[in-house]
């Protein structure tokens, strides 16, 4: 008795107290009882809605009504799901997000400004078979992380030096539409003496100008995605911090760089870049982005079709670049315990409800076009991948219209901006990359719809599109 007490105090002193917790989480992870699901997507690709509806449907999965393609739920093997988000450092605001979708009239959540976490514990019954030897009931913990999509694009910077980054940005800003929009800023940069001493104010002023420029490029009609550094657009808790006095040099780097004064603009930016990497990106990456087991990549293909080729190319480049920041490969048991890698990736074209059902297959194919390079590399690493068109919340209704004697499948819903009811045949999705002359307003007119109200209980398959199949693909094999 005395001995255990002494051991306890000893353990407490040496910080071993947390060890059992750590060991438990490692072991659970090793036995695939705990998975971290990476929800990856650029800003406004629907991460927050996906997470909240996924959690909502899972929390009601014991009723077995809304997820017919999610085997454990359809077979009635899910006993109960508990929301453990409060254990996390920054819990995901599940209730308030859902309240927005359940309100009358319902509305989409505002864009995410902070990192937050959802933890779900799924208590399930194993199917009859060998697995039952481990006990009839088991629990799977699912961790989901929500964060501003802008931050994601910072991850590729970890592997770059300031000079390399500037060169990348210079090539980006040499092409339309960036070069036209940034004309003034480029002119300003050309007039700067980079190697003579400068001031904090100057640096801050220029970074603010660069931020305005990025904001302008992000909005329609350009709608570009590849925006670095991402914290300029979505500072989170770093608003106004000198860490964000950062922008790339869009003019050729100074040839006599070694003569630059220590407080010249060039030296300052180089320093700021390294600090940004060390103090902003690396903690974000190390704490949240290293230990993933499964990944879902959400892509808004309709935006690129609406905006044209430049937007498509930009998004393709952004996605392929950021997917390099994750580690892919098969997991051995040891590897799973200590350095898990992503071994299953689902690419999802979101907003499938914004096109008619007969276009879903084309949407899949179009998504494949966009991510084909990244996908090829993942396959090389033995990672299984899949493409799927899904909608976390259904905002339209499938209807038919007679037009010139033809029956057209259409959508009916409420406009996002004005809440007026519209019926729309949104056009067809190409399965090949359209030719330059085909990117025009007459061909694609995908509008944003307001969500239809999500019920609190009595969820049905008609409240989502393929959310169950996504869940089955990502977690189905673990619930056995």
């Amino acid at each position: 008795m005395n001995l255990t007490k002494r051991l306890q105090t000893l353990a407490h002193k040496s910080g071993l107290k947390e060890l059992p917790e750590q060991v438990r989480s490692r072991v659970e992870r090793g036995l695939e009882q705990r998975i971290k699901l990476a929800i990856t997507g650029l800003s406004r690709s629907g991460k927050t809605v996906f997470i909240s509806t996924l959690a909502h449907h899972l929390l009601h999965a014991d009723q077995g009504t809304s997820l017919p393609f999610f085997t454990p739920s359809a077979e009635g093997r899910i006993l109960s799901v508990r929301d453990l988000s409060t254990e996390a450092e920054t819990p995901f605001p599940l209730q308030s997000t859902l309240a927005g979708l359940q309100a009358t009239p319902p509305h989409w959540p505002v864009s995410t400004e902070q990192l937050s976490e959802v933890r779900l514990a799924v208590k399930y019954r194993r199917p009859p078979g060998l697995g039952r030897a481990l006990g009839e009931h088991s629990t799977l913990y699912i961790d989901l992380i929500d964060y501003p999509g802008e931050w994601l694009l910072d991850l590729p910077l970890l592997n770059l030096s300031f000079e390399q980054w500037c060169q990348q940005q210079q090539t980006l800003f040499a092409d339309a539409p960036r070069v036209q929009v940034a004309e003034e800023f480029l002119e300003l940069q050309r007039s700067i003496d980079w190697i003579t001493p400068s001031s904090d104010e100057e640096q801050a002023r220029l970074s603010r100008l660069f931020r305005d420029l990025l904001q302008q490029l992000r909005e329609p009609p350009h709608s570009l995605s590849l925006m670095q550094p991402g914290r300029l657009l979505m500072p989170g808790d770093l608003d106004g911090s000198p860490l964000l006095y950062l922008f790339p040099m869009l003019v050729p780097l100074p040839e006599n760089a070694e003569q630059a004064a220590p407080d010249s603009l060039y030296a300052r930016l180089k320093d700021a870049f390294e600090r940004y990497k060390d103090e902003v990106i690396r903690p974000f990456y190390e704490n949240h982005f290293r230990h993933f087991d499964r990944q879902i990549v959400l892509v808004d293909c309709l935006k690129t079709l609406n905006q044209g080729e430049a937007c498509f190319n930009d998004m393709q480049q952004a996605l392929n670049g950021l997917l390099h920041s994750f580690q892919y490969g098969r997991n051995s048991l040891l590897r799973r315990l200590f350095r898990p890698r992503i071994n299953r990736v689902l690419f999802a074209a979101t907003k499938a409800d914004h096109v008619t059902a007969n276009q879903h297959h084309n949407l899949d194919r179009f998504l494949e076009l966009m991510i084909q390079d990244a996908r090829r590399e993942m396959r090389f690493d033995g990672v299984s991948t899949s493409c799927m068109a899904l909608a976390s919340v259904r905002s339209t209704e499938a209807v038919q219209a007679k037009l010139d004697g033809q029956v057209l499948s259409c959508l009916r819903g409420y406009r996002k901006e004005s809440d007026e009811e519209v019926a729309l045949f949104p056009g067809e999705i190409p399965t090949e990359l359209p030719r330059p002359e085909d990117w025009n307003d007459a061909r694609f007119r995908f509008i944003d719809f307001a969500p239809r109200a999500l019920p609190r209980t009595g969820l049905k398959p008609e409240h989502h599109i393929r959310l169950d199949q996504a869940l089955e693909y990502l977690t189905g094999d673990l619930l056995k």
Partner: protein
Amino acid sequence: MKPTEQEWTAPRFITPEQLDQPTSADEPYTPPQEFAPEETEPEPLAEPLVSAPARPPRRRWGRKLLGVSLALLLATVVGSELYRLLEWSFALHPLAGGLVSALLAIAGGGLALQIRRSFKGLKQLKASADLKQEAEQLATSTGQGQAARFLSRLQQHYRTHPDAEQILQQTHEVDSSYSDAEVVHFLSRHALGKQDAQARRCIQRHSVEAGMLVAVSPWASFDMLLAGWRNLRMLNEIMSIYGIAPGASAQIKLVRSVLHNIAFAGLSDLAMDAGSTLLGTSLTSGLSARAGQGLGAGLFTARTGLMAMELCRPLPAAGKKQTLMKQISGDLLKNLGKSGS
């Protein structure tokens, strides 16, 4: 290829009044359209012609001729004998004649009823095979909207089933956004859930019983009869579970297809079962030879049952066969081990 004027349909807004409420049975169609001959071009790849299976007509004719003449001969013999019987009974006494003719009428009526029932069963079996073929086609397609016809045919097929309400309810649950393949998967998993569970239980019970019977039966030649008897009983039950009228000719047809499938198409299954059989041998080494025979008979019954289930089910299998085989062999081993010790 030179660019044609417009290869795509332009998006457009539609006033809500123009909308029709969709009905799931409504199928979208391609409107007829006329083309100038210059605009057309030859199809690049000719569709493979569906060649009619070559069959030797003469031999068939010979067999048919033989069958028809034999049937006619039999009918004449039976008819004349019956006529003589009637004549004789009427000559004996009018009352006896009345009795015999009444009996004949009842027998004739019963026979007609049986024939009608068995034809109904045959028709249902055929319909279910057709539906399954269509479902398999749909399951590999990437399109959307073709499944509506299949759905209404399936509803038609199960209109008279005792659990019709439940099955139809599931077909109404099909979501408007599902592609054809998803519709088939959905139905395959959900529409016949109750029937599948019943059929599985039935197969399991019968195989274990057949296995035990063979294991304890004292005469070796009796085994085959026993196993066959149990198998027929099981087929009947499976047919009625899936709503197929269990007439004699449907049963014969099913037995033929099952045997055919086991003999020819079932080779891969056999190879897969080899795994469980190997597992069995290590476990059965302690059992007697008779118990081993029982195990074999039970597994054969299980395979027959699964095959029959597949043939009676108008939807492609949802892939639970392997686990069921394992479960049955496990059950058998347990029971046989108990009886052996």
